[in-house]
């Protein structure tokens, strides 16, 4: 059997990889406001960019060191014992093996690039320091998640990235909707985290308890295993009886057939323990990685600044679930049911999100749904046991999706915070670098041959088709079919977004009709230049019926935005932030010229012409565009008889479970055929989109939408509204828990507390009665009854205000004395 536990090589600087960004986060978080005021933006972004860059440098160093080691080695850095309680021990320790090495490199590299990009993108934001602090904090959390040596440390990063996601989505918190989107992301993620942590509990419990049928043997086994590894120091699996919480130790414990059988054969409510563990962990993954049914937060997360969407909501954080499944492959391969569920959910999400992507008009929403869809592909891969392929697609996706998002950011900035593709068009001429890189990345995601996405996605489709682990009728083929349709949709809607944005004529505010509006904008601060939804916005062919379904949730929120903030406020929202700014860009709107400073005095006239972004942004785009093309060449198909460096690199990580991942045994002919089919799909989507959307010249889409057909209208409405899933969740879970909380609060004040107050009232009444008896029957002997009645009013008042305690105390002490007496007598 393959030796699962890696040989640990001490690498004392590994902790710096997560620590450096943390230093940046704390520094800018605490001092950034003052620094920015006094020394300007450069003093903020120099450390904020250099520290993640340092992190990347150390990751690279470690990665190269790892590459120089024999297979099965991992770099290890133990810091301190975090939770040493009872038999459980969770350390603050980092581990870089070949899997986490690839992840750390990807995260640190893309992360650093996006930091650089943000210098340009966020330059006009007064809370520049806060942005970089959060972004650094995110890098810390993500790298902790990736490099954490055990489940609990991974959970630190797991929740940490959720927090950063919240902070960054709600970065422009003045806009209530954006803040709400952040909240939604955190809470939905917490639902996932709930599953994740329960899965961890269940796993530990399963490993800790000895099987009932073989108590003696297991106890001996555990002790022997413990003794075997005790001498090795902090890095080895020293916990007794399987309570170590590191990934490698759990994997090692599962080599023990007794433990493994217990996990596999122990049923809880008819479900195997291991299946339950995997499914619960997968609930966590669906939250973090936006899969059905917890994907709903990701599209809303687009409320955050675009670099955030690129880094967190495309390239890194959302892939954490895929990483986690790959990391715990030794669990998933034990449960064919769980693997089938993962693969099926992945495939269905891929298709589901792709269909929603077909009809979106907000460029970021298109990309958001495409991310959900691509994550589905990754889960399909890890679900069929093709772990390296999942991680491979994760990596290529990080490149091309970051490129797409940053490209969209460049477009949005160039168009002055316009996100509606119907108001774009023709940008290729105005923003050539953005257009080229966007095209390359689109080709990559669509799966054009020789682009990075082709290699990874085609491999996923093939592995799904060929999988022997899927328990569905038809095996992997049905998943392949679903994924193939999703791939076709992907190619179509991505090229649709490209053509709508970059081809034809510019349809934004600067277009023909924009002239008069310009003047109006110049004079009337209430209708700022960014108010692109002005009357000049001619109802073009694309626009007409679709306007019914306003382009995304952003529109129509106008009246909700507040009256302009008071002048002189820190953020200087300024008078431009008028109620009419439909796209509600929060603090960025109307904060004056977004063009470089020299243009600024030129005023609004300039602001209307889309312009290419500064070098810090286009440079990053170029780098990512290059990788979107070239990033796939590390994992060339076997079919071509070329070396697949990526698979070879990953092989030792997954070798322990490779024997349990089976193939359906299709031959090379089938594989060639499928590859050809993939290419047909990619080009099919491309040509369809080109035919329909190039230059906005084809009237078919508009005619279709305008047609009176109930069916067309109905389908469009349902899909455009994302199948009303948000509404359904809101009506059930959100309203349900709010209702329950109100009902319980009512119960608490009226019934639980009501009983307490009732007891008080009864006590008062009883004291009054007692007083009355005292008065009437004792004093009554001497006093006139009538006089006692006359006194009653004053008496009641006295009793009610001052003497309650005395009476109740008297009662209590009397009762006490009686009971004590009775007891003593009985004794």
């Amino acid at each position, binding site marked *: 059997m393959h030796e699962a536990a890696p040989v640990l090589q001490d690498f004392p600087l590994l902790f710096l990889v997560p620590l450096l960004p943390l230093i940046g986060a704390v520094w800018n978080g605490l001092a950034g406001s003052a620094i920015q005021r006094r020394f300007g933006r450069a003093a903020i972004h120099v450390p904020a960019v250099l520290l993640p860059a340092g992190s990347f440098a150390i990751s690279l160093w470690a990665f190269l060191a790892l590459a120089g080691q024999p297979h099965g080695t991992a770099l290890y850095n133990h810091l301190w014992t975090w939770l040493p309680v009872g038999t459980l021990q969770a350390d603050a320790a980092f581990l870089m093996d070949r899997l986490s090495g690839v992840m750390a490199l990807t995260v640190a590299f893309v992360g650093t690039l996006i930091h650089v990009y943000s210098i340009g993108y966020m330059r006009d934001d007064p809370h520049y320091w806060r942005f970089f602090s959060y972004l650094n904090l995110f890098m810390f959390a993500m790298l902790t998640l990736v490099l954490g040596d055990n489940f609990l440390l991974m959970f630190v990063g797991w929740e*940490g990235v959720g927090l950063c996601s919240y902070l960054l989505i709600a970065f422009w918190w*003045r806009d209530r909707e954006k803040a709400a989107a952040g909240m939604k992301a955190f809470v939905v993620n917490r639902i996932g985290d*709930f599953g994740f942590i*329960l899965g961890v509990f269940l796993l530990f419990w399963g490993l800790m308890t000895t099987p009932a049928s073989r108590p003696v043997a297991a106890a001996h086994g555990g002790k022997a295993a413990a003794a075997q590894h005790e001498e090795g120091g902090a890095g080895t699996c020293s916990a007794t009886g399987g309570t170590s919480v590191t990934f490698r130790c759990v994997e090692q414990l599962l080599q023990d057939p007794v433990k493994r059988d217990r996990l596999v054969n122990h049923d809880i409510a008819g479900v195997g323990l291991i299946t339950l563990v995997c499914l619960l962990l997968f609930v966590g993954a669906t939250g973090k990685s936006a899969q059905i049914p917890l994907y709903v937060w990701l599209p809303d997360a687009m409320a955050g600044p675009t670099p955030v969407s690129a880094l967190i909501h495309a390239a890194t954080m959302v892939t954490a679930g895929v990483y986690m499944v790959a990391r715990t492959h030794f669990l998933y391969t034990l449960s064919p049911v769980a693997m089938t569920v993962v693969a099926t959910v992945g495939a269905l999400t891929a298709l589901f999100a792709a269909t929603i992507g077909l009809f979106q008009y907000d460029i970021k929403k298109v990309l958001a749904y495409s991310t959900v869809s691509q994550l589905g592909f990754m889960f399909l891969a890890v679900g069929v046991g093709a772990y390296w392929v999942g991680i491979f697609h994760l990596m290529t996706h990080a490149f091309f999706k970051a490129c797409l998002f940053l490209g969209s950011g460049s477009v949005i900035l160039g168009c002055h915070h316009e996100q509606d593709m119907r108001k774009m068009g023709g940008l290729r001429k105005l923003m050539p670098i953005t257009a080229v890189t966007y095209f390359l990345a689109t080709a990559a995601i669509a799966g054009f041959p020789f682009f990075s996405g082709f290699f990874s996605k085609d491999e996923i489709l093939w592995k799904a088709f060929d999988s022997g682990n899927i328990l569905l009728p038809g095996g992997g083929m049905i998943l392949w079919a679903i994924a193939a349709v999703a791939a076709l949709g992907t190619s179509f809607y991505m090229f649709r977004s490209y053509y709508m944005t970059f081809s034809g004529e510019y349809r934004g505010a600067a277009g023909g009709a924009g002239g008069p509006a310009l003047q109006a904008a110049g004079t009337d601060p209430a209708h700022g230049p960014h108010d692109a939804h002005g009357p000049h916005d001619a109802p073009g062919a694309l626009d007409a019926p679709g306007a019914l379904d306003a382009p995304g949730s952003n529109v129509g929120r106008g009246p909700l935005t507040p009256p302009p903030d008071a002048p002189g406020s820190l953020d200087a929202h300024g008078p431009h932030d008028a109620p009419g700014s439909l796209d509600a860009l929060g603090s960025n709107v109307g904060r004056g010229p977004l063009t470089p400073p020299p243009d600024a005095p030129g005023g609004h006239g300039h602001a209307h012409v889309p312009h290419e972004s500064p070098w810090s942004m286009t440079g990053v785009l170029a780098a990512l565009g290059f990788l979107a093309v070239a990033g796939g060449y590390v994992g060339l198909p076997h079919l071509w008889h070329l070396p697949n460096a990526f698979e070879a690199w990953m092989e030792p990580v997954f070798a322990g479970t490779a024997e349990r991942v089976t193939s359906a045994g299709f031959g090379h002919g089938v594989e060639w055929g499928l590859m050809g089919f993939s290419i047909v799909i990619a080009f099919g989507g491309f040509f369809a989109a080109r035919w329909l959307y190039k230059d906005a010249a084809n009237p078919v889409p508009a005619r279709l939408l305008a047609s009176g057909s109930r069916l067309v209208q109905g389908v469009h409405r349902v899909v455009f509204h994302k199948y009303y899933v948000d509404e359904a969740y809101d009506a059930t879970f959100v309203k349900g828990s709010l209702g329950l*909380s109100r009902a*319980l609060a009512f119960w608490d004040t009226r019934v*639980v507390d009501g009983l307490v107050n009732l007891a008080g009232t009864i006590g008062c009444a009883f004291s009054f009665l007692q007083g009355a008896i005292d008065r009437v029957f004792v004093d009554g002997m001497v006093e006139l009854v009538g006089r006692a009645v006359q006194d009653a009013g004053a008496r009641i008042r006295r009793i009610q205000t001052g003497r309650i305690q005395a009476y109740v105390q008297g009662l*209590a002490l009397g009762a006490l004395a009686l009971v004590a007496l009775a007891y003593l007598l009985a004794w």
Partner: protein
Amino acid sequence: MDLTTQSTLLTWTVFTPALGLAAILALYCLRPILRLSQPAMDQAARGIGLLASIAAMGLSIALWADFDGGSSSLQFIHRFVWMKSWNIEYFVGVDGLSLSMVVLTAFVFLAGAIASLPWLGKLDDHHPHFTKKRVPGYWVLFLLLETGVLGTFAAEDFFLFYVFWEIMLLPMYFLIGIWGAPTRKDPDGRTRGGPYAAIKFFLYTLAGSVLMMLALIAIYYASGPATLADGTQAPHTFNLVHLTAQAHAGTFVGAKAILGIPFVHIVFVALFLGFAIKVPMFPFHTWLPDAHVDAPTPISVILAGILLKTGMYGMFRFNLQIFPTGLAWAAWAIGVIGVINIVYGAFVCMAQKDLKKLIAYSSVSHMGFCLLGLAAATPQAVTGSIFQMVGHGIVSPMLFLIAGVVYDRAHTREIEGFGGLAHKMPEYAAITGFAFMASLGLPGLAGFVGEILVFLGAFSAQGGIFRILVAIGALSTVITAGYYLWTMQRMFLGPFNHRWQHLWDMNWRERLALYPLAVATVVLGVWPTPVFDMVRETVNGLLAALPAGM
């Protein structure tokens, strides 16, 4: 076990606040002679009160520094016969559990003392502020309360414990009643306010004390002979160490049943209910929101940070230490109620409109973790439970200080009435966000450690019910995130409500009270080892007596 006096340091720690109290009283009596004006007297009282709190903090740190975490036996024992005729001793000493609470007490009282000062920051002169009302009286009661709490945690004689327990009650009553919110009508026309809350708190807790006293008497008369500190033999004992030894030797098993119920069970229940009211445990928790809402800020801080812990402490010290068989008998019921606390508290939180009430109910929810940990009685769960006491003891004071900050300025805590406050009070928004995150159990902060250990420990407890309980309890993490973030959203985010244009950000008094707590939250979340080292052997000792199969 050797129970001879080792040191008087603990006694000094307990009574240092009382010395401050005596100083204030002396000064007050000498006021005419010294010709102290009222403002001067007030300032002197504040100064003495602050100094006494600082001194108690220093002494508690000295205790911690000298404490040997490798031993489960009592340390810093100070013992002599107090009332010979009733075999009552003055007997104080700490183990890891007591010490963690003593240090926490001194820390939280210091934060409370700082929050009781009108210094280092402007106060709204248009509204009377409790820090300027009957100042010497406030500080006398404040210090009496501190001595009462410290004594409760240090006492190792049941009668002495009871005395300190009752000492806690009295100052709290006046502090809420006099310095709390004035009497008012709530929207439903019911009378609420400081006096109502104080009476409710007093009577409710007194009812618990009565149960405890019954148990005290019963246990005393059921106990066997023991040696007093002066070497004489006594037929019965209040000495907790002796009681524990006798209990484990089976003395109480043979004791006569009361009303047909076995002695151990009925005494266990009486003690448990007495403590449960203080925790507070569902359904005896309704005094808490009222007391919290109407108490002045520092008193809420102490109430949430410390007084609730006395209930849990009592359960550990009496129910677990003396009656482990009783705990084994009642474990599942305690676990169920603990989870009700957790989930019910969280749901009720979400419906609250008053920030302070919300925080009060969050205490109900978070103390449920302690109950669950106690019930599960595994090393992780009990350690987690104690850690949760410490963690909640740090985080909930932050939350109440935070509620005080906004109330001092806006004179309302209506969550819906705010909006966009982060615009005007960015620092305040940041620390609030931090405290919320700590309270909702973000990993890396103190709240997480306790929760995760309780859950982990309870999950592996005997009895399948605990796994179901954990699964239900863990659901509260979602609800908790929901109500905190929703509060954040309604108070701080979104467009700024211009009604609050006149508010100002944090001042130094508030910072001095809040930031040390925040630092402790981070340190304990990242490096909880000091607490583990303190309590490890104590927990092992407590659990060693549990019957097998528990």
